[in-house]
């Protein structure tokens, strides 16, 4: 990172004075530390806290979620501490439940909508940043950083206020613009429009990262490529397609994949807006997992939902790795 290289050679940093070294060598602690350093165990000692934390707090849960998904674990079993294996019963009951498939399909469509809007919008904003006047760029970047920095729950709360049925600024604006049908229109009446609001919120939150990342890529395109395209008489669309897009494609792949991973797992915004309502109309797999497991204490069944989510994420990750390896080979 550029920060490091800049900080690496400050003029003021000279090696410490010998005086302090003498005192260091003289103290018992210094000798002990030095003996530890000379030992071969030192790296392992230093790595111990991190490794232990990762194995206990990440490794075990990954194993445990799989084990739990094959158990009947409701409130009774939780309190008594009994382990009751029930084979594939959790998966069977989930996979034969049409409500689960509805939620799964909704999650997939929701993720796709979020990713398309975020990456498409981010690309447009990145190109805007390149082409606007200098001061406009500064204003635009400041606005993006503000949106980026806003805590998720604060943004969710503000969006609920903006989309408020009676006094929300959005309905008022739409009426003012002549769409009188939006007078006291309820955005949270149906599942579809609730989901639309959530997609708008997530897109608004997600675009800044994508736009800044792609903008860095746009800046990295050598200018002589544009000059050459200009000399060849390429239209601006042709220039975009053959120069900018070609250079940006690997980056677009990366941000698309990251957005996929993030948006598939979104819980906060969905839950905070309507808890999966109205009537389950905005339920996604993460809220289903919470509802089944924590709210209604069917931990085994909820773990099966988690495992299905994890499998989907693993498939996505593997797909992306393959994609990345392939583009690297071609390049």
């Amino acid at each position, binding site marked *: *990172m550029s*920060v*490091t290289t800049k900080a*690496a050679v400050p003029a003021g*940093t000279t*090696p*410490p004075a*010998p005086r302090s*070294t003498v005192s*260091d060598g003289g103290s018992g602690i*210094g000798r002990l530390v030095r003996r530890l*350093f000379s030992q071969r165990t030192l*790296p392992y000692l*230093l*790595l111990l*806290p*991190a*490794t232990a*934390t990762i194995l206990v*707090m*990440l490794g075990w*849960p990954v194993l445990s979620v799989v084990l739990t998904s094959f158990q009947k674990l409701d409130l009774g079993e939780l309190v008594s501490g009994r382990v009751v294996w029930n084979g594939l019963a959790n998966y069977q009951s989930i996979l034969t439940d049409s409500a689960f498939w509805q939620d799964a399909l909704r999650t997939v469509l929701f993720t796709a909508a979020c990713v398309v809007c975020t990456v498409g919008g981010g690309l447009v*904003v990145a190109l*805007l940043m390149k*082409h606007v*006047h200098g001061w*406009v*760029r500064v204003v*635009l970047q400041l*606005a*993006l*950083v503000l*949106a980026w*920095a*806003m*805590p*998720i*729950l*604060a943004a969710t*709360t*503000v*969006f609920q*206020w903006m989309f*408020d049925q009676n*006094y929300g600024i959005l309905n*008022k604006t739409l009426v*003012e613009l002549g769409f009188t049908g939006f007078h006291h229109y309820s955005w949270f009446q149906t599942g579809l429009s609730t989901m639309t609001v959530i997609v708008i919120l997530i897109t608004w939150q997600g675009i800044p990262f994508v736009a800044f990342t792609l903008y*860095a*890529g746009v800046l*990295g395109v050598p200018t002589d490529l544009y000059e050459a395209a200009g000399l060849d008489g390429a239209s601006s669309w042709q220039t975009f397609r053959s120069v900018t897009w070609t250079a940006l494609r690997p*980056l677009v792949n990366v941000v698309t994949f990251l957005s996929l991973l993030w948006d598939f*797992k979104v819980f*906060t915004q969905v*839950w905070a807006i309507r808890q999966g309502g109205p009537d389950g109309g905005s339920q996604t797999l993460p809220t289903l997992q919470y509802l089944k*497991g924590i709210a209604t204490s069917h*931990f085994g069944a909820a773990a099966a939902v*988690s495992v299905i*989510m*994890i499998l989907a994420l693993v498939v996505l*990750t593997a797909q992306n790795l393959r994609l990345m390896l392939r583009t690297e080979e071609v390049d």
Partner: protein
Amino acid sequence: MGRTKKRLVSVVGLLVAVLFAFPIYWMVTTALKPANQLLSDSYDLVPLGVTFQHFVDGVSKQGFLNSLQNSLIVALAAVAFALVAGLLAAVPLARLRFRGRKGFLLLVLVAQMAPFEALLIPMFLMIRSFDLLNALPGLILVYFAAALPFTAWTLRGFVKGIPVDLEEAAMVDGCGRWAAFRRVTLPLLGPGLVATSVFSFVTAWNEFLYALTFMQDPGNVTLPVWLSSFVSVFGTDWGGAMAASTVFTVPVLVFFLFVQRNLVSGATAGAVKG
């Protein structure tokens, strides 16, 4: 590009900027509007009066200060633990040669991809078995584990970025290895430590799912959970809700503007390397 075209694009750019800044503008102006102007049918993009009453009300609402304090404790503690454990791991991974180094690197790398949202059930069961449900340490433990892999990996990059010659020069001058690290490398790590702690802090500050699940006692909730219940409990007190959201936003905003350059270049550096 022609001059008119550039002007047109700039106008579009300004509109987009307004679109992105508007929710924040709206949050702050709503928080400052007198109550009688909030629930009105008039079209009022610009506030006609200013009051700090909502801030007074919001802050004195049941549980706000308590949850603010909980959020600060949980986020700061998680960051501190992640920094210590992360730095301890980053140094050998960046500097020392030893058996199994590649394995540890892989572990940290894979751990970064852990799908935390999908591990809610086993985490709940584990924290319950530690008897830490409904207590801040349980949440700290989870946030620490969530921040650790990223912290260790990023700090490893920063340590690698500091030329090892500097340390060796100090050792030639008579420093022990530890003294060389403490006096040369550690001070140079400043920007890296700041950047990674801001990232971990913001993640913990934002976290909702685990806080909602673990903290069943209203006295132990963090700000996001408090704010989410605020909206459903005080449905029409939008002035108070916006004032509370503003207070919730300010620390993060300060951090972001502070490290904005690092964040952007950091995010892109990682992305370009793919």
